[in-house]
């Protein structure tokens, strides 16, 4: 079928890539979930993964912090280079990978601890030595949550609203100072106002972090991202479905003049 088109970023030759994906195949058991993916994620930009359900975008993002390791039977082929180092090399510790590549999940999942401890936990286990109070405040400010929670840091993280919980999860992620923040449909459970707050936050965060976001919401992708990757799924001869990368380019190009008809159909709402 269509072959994935590499990014045609001719203007900026010296673009710095944080993550480079080469010939990535992901299997769940004997099932091929995503095939033959090549991607280059530029530093300090927001890259969005869009596509219909089951197209493998979440699977790919979960390869970036080796979260697929936790799924029994999951297997990764190909290379995922992070700052030039293969994340799946034998001597790489997945725990260290996850500290440097943080993740915000679809469903806000604060720890059943106080707001303060939610932030402090990650820092403490990663050997943070410094002023914890200051780190907590800085992280909460970074996630635009400080003003709402500064008087109730001792209260449970679960007492916050859904949107606040998701920002707490972002705060806890930036507290461990990762280089990349992965967001797997971070706003799918949030109301429009909370969604806007998280999107504003992403624009601020990209000054310091590289962000990769999976989203079902194409308006969101067009609003927040600099680069967009469109994934699709096709039927396999054996009756399964396999996801693949259709097109990866600047967001403007993907939404206004994509080179693939499947992309054009998807972003114009003809399917998906």
């Amino acid at each position, binding site marked *: 079928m269509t072959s994935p088109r590499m990014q045609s970023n001719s203007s900026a030759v010296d673009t710095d890539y944080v993550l480079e994906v080469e010939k990535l195949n992901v299997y769940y058991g004997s099932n091929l979930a995503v095939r033959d993916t090549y991607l280059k994620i530029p530093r300090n930009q927001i890259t969005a993964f869009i596509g219909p359900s089951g197209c493998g975008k979440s699977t790919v993002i979960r390869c970036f912090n080796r979260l697929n390791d936790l799924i029994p039977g999951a297997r990764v082929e190909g290379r995922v280079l992070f700052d030039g180092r293969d994340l799946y090399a034998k001597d790489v510790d997945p725990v260290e990978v*996850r500290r440097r590549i943080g993740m915000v999940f679809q469903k806000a999942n604060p720890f*059943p601890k106080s707001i303060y401890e939610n932030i402090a*936990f990650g820092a403490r286990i990663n050997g943070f030595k410094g002023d914890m109070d200051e780190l907590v405040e800085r992280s909460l400010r970074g996630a635009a949550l400080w003003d709402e929670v500064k008087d109730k840091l001792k209260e449970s993280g679960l007492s916050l609203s859904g949107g606040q919980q998701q920002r707490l999860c972002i705060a806890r992620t930036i507290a461990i100072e990762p280089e990349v923040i992965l967001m797997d449909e971070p706003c799918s459970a949030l109301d429009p106002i909370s969604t806007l707050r998280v999107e504003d936050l992403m624009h601020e965060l990209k000054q310091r972090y590289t962000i990769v976001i999976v989203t079902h919401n194409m308006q969101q992708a067009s609003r927040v991202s600099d680069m967009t990757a469109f994934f699709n799924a096709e039927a396999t001869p054996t009756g399964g479905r396999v996801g693949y990368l259709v097109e990866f380019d600047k967001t403007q190009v993907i939404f206004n003049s994509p080179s693939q008809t499947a992309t054009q159909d998807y972003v114009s709402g003809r399917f998906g």
Partner: protein
Amino acid sequence: MTTPDNTPTSGTTPGTMSYTVAPQRKLFGNIMTGLVIACALLAALPLVSILITVITNGLSRFGPAIFTELPPPPLVDGGGLRNAIVGTLTVMVISAAISVPFGIMAAIYVSEFARDTKLANAVRFGINVLSGVPSIIAGLFAYGVVVLATGTFSAVAGGVALAVLMIPIIERTAEEGLKSIPLEVRQGALGVGATNFQTISQIVLPASLPFLATGVTLALARASGETAALLFTALFNQFDARSVWQPTATLSVLIYNFAISPYKNQQELAWVAAFLIMVFILIVSIIARRLGRRTQF
């Protein structure tokens, strides 16, 4: 805009709404309702009866001497249950010290690591079987493992026997508690760079603490009244046990020994012992229910 015909047409007659309820049908319903109410009351009756008898008989002798004095020889009046109270507490502490870490760690393995593997299912099945093992068999096990090996009946042997009975209860409630913590919370912890051990010990276990405490208290309540398992492990002692490696008196075995004795004083002491066990179980059950309500998910 007006509907031309919104009045009911006279051609069709609406179904009549009056049925005649057969009187015998109604009567049968009432009888059945009465029957289930009677059964419900009857089911509670033994408990009420036991409570009244134990409390009235137990309280008649209840006083400070119960805690400070030893049970006297036959035909001597007065005395208390000091050795049995201390013995019961000793055996319980030993059994808890064995069964709590065992049960909780087994639950951690099954729910966090093995999950749905064959080994996990085998462990689960084994624990189910263990929970159905008669307590006298658990006593036999401790007799073989501890009493024969050490050459003496002891509080330790009694504790091992009770631990065998407590482990399944603790493991099951702990596993249930661990499973109630959503997978997303574990992923969140791993996502900020926690190791498996840090995730379990600092996030999952504290969050499931109410469940763990409930399991432990329920197991303690079960063990506190256990008699058969102690008969030939802790045995009995007319006096204070000087160490955990001596035959030790317990309240439950004291009831067994004294209730069938012909002496009135010993029978009265058996009632007091029964009262003490009931109070202990009541307190522990209330604690367990309180803890169980404090779940966060």
